[in-house]
């Protein structure tokens, strides 16, 4: 009998590590209340969690690692001391180590996408990942800017609002969810991706993994250590509740509906 040496075709994407960003935000289920000074929302004593889109980002990175497309997942977060808990959650989901760029408590609200993008750019310089995955937007400011700004600073290709990411011949084939439908693009590595909700179903952190995550390393640093100026470029003037929903009107037929809509100036 002859034993044939099968040459296993290694995954063509030879990435070393992937960098994932996550943000600690007010939990999506919390009822938001505007602060009395109308400059923001109440955060004290309010439940916080990892930004949902960031969960998709980490899940994607973990799946890539399971498919042996990346060797290491480094997760980073910019925020106050409590952001460490968010990083721990990412570690419990499968990230290997964390970086916490800490800002003084209370200043995290003024940390805007441009500052975060600059910080992440410095981290990319340090860690040299081949792929960076972020959540498409944070549910507190809904900016949807950090990924794009980061790609711009790094001069890397970007695949935002990704709902499908595939590897093929050293490139990433990405399906993006855009206003008109779905768009397929192909990007060279290294690249920045932002995860959309339908990219994957994030896993629950199992208790064994949560316990293991306690021992994983989290490196701490400040924006000053990275030489980044995080002062805000945008000033928030006022934060108000959306207008209270008014009572609706029932009409007997379409003709009346049309005339009412015209009357109210909606069409």
């Amino acid at each position, binding site marked *: 009998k002859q034993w044939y040496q099968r040459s296993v075709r290694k995954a063509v994407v030879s990435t070393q590590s992937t960098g994932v960003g996550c943000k600690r935000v007010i939990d999506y289920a919390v009822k938001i209340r505007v602060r009395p000074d109308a400059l923001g929302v109440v955060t004290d004593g309010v439940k916080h969690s990892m930004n949902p889109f960031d969960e998709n980002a980490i899940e994607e990175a973990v799946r890539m690692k399971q498919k042996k497309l990346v060797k290491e997942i480094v997760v980073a977060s910019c925020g106050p001391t409590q952001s460490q808990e968010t990083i721990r959650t990412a570690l419990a989901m499968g990230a290997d180590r964390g970086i916490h760029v800490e800002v003084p408590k209370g200043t995290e609200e003024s940390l805007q996408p441009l500052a975060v993008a600059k910080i992440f750019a410095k981290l990319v310089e340090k860690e040299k990942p081949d792929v960076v995955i972020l959540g498409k937007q944070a549910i507190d400011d809904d900016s949807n800017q950090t990924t794009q700004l980061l790609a711009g600073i790094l001069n890397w290709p970007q695949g935002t609002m990704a709902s499908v990411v595939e590897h093929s011949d050293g490139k990433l084939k990405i399906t993006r969810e855009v206003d008109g439908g779905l768009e397929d693009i192909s990007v060279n590595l290294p690249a920045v991706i932002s995860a959309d909700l339908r990219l994957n179903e994030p896993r*629950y*952190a*199992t*208790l*064994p993994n949560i*316990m293991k995550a306690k021992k994983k390393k989290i490196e701490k640093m400040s924006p000053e250590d990275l030489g980044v100026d995080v002062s805000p470029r945008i000033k928030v003037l006022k934060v108000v509740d959306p207008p209270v929903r008014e009572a609706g009107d029932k009409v007997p037929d379409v003709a009346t509906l049309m005339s009412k809509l015209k009357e109210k100036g909606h069409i």
Partner: protein
Amino acid sequence: IFKLLGDAGYLGISKPVEYGGMGLDISFEAVAAEAYSYIASGGVAMGIGIQCDIATPALTKYGSEDLKEMYLRPTISGDVVACLGVSEVGGGSDVAALRTSARRDGDEWVINGGKMWTTNGAQADWMCLLANSSEGPVHRNKSLFIVPMTTPGVTVHRVIEKMGMHASDTTETTFEDVRIPANHLIGEEGKGFLYQMQQFQNERISIGAGVIAAMDQCLELTIEYTSQRQAFGRSILDNQYVHYKLAELQTELECTRALYHKCIDDYLAGEDITPIATMLKLKSSRLVRQVTDECLQFWGGMGYTDDDPISRMF
């Protein structure tokens, strides 16, 4: 849900690693119990509590390797469901007065009697059963057994309709000449009462934990509601009586929480927590009636409806 939790490693938090558990101490188990109380269905939390803290501690501590391999391992992995059979129609609080008997016959035990108020009873695969196994003083004549629920002679009579905890199946079961292998005895014959009293401690801590966390939520929701609801030109919370009452309740809750923490600390230090755990159960159960009742009143008419969570908490 049991399988989901089992796969994620949450059903064996304080159970031995050899059987698939996490081998962590009871403080982790207690924190999990607190977390389960955030489930909007108390019945679900109760069912999980049986599996983790109520039907399994005695097996874990005193059961033989074979018995643990057969029953503890699949319970931790969520593949089988456990229940506890102690209370009977003739005695719930009075455990010593129970009538179910186990008679040794060759290499089998024959069980006769009935059990009441069995949580998980309709879906359980096995029951941790306390029965009289010999003549003698009532605290020394009982034993704990593992009874597979499919054994001939085991009949689940009815699922009891209750005032609350509707998601949890509570059953009445009878045992008629139920034969189980002799090795299904947990630990030593005659020590069942002692084992069960110890098992109750785990139950008390777990219930204390859940109830305290539930009161946290109740007060928080009520404070939020009363601070928003306007009547007579100001918020309900602006009224000194309401504010004061809620502050008093919160103080009572903090004292109970301190008791709960002491209970855990003493347990971890290896001390006998029987008095403290019993006080915890007494205080937390009594306080939760007071807290939910008082809070519900502050919700006014809304409190009675199903629109808000407070009536359910009551």
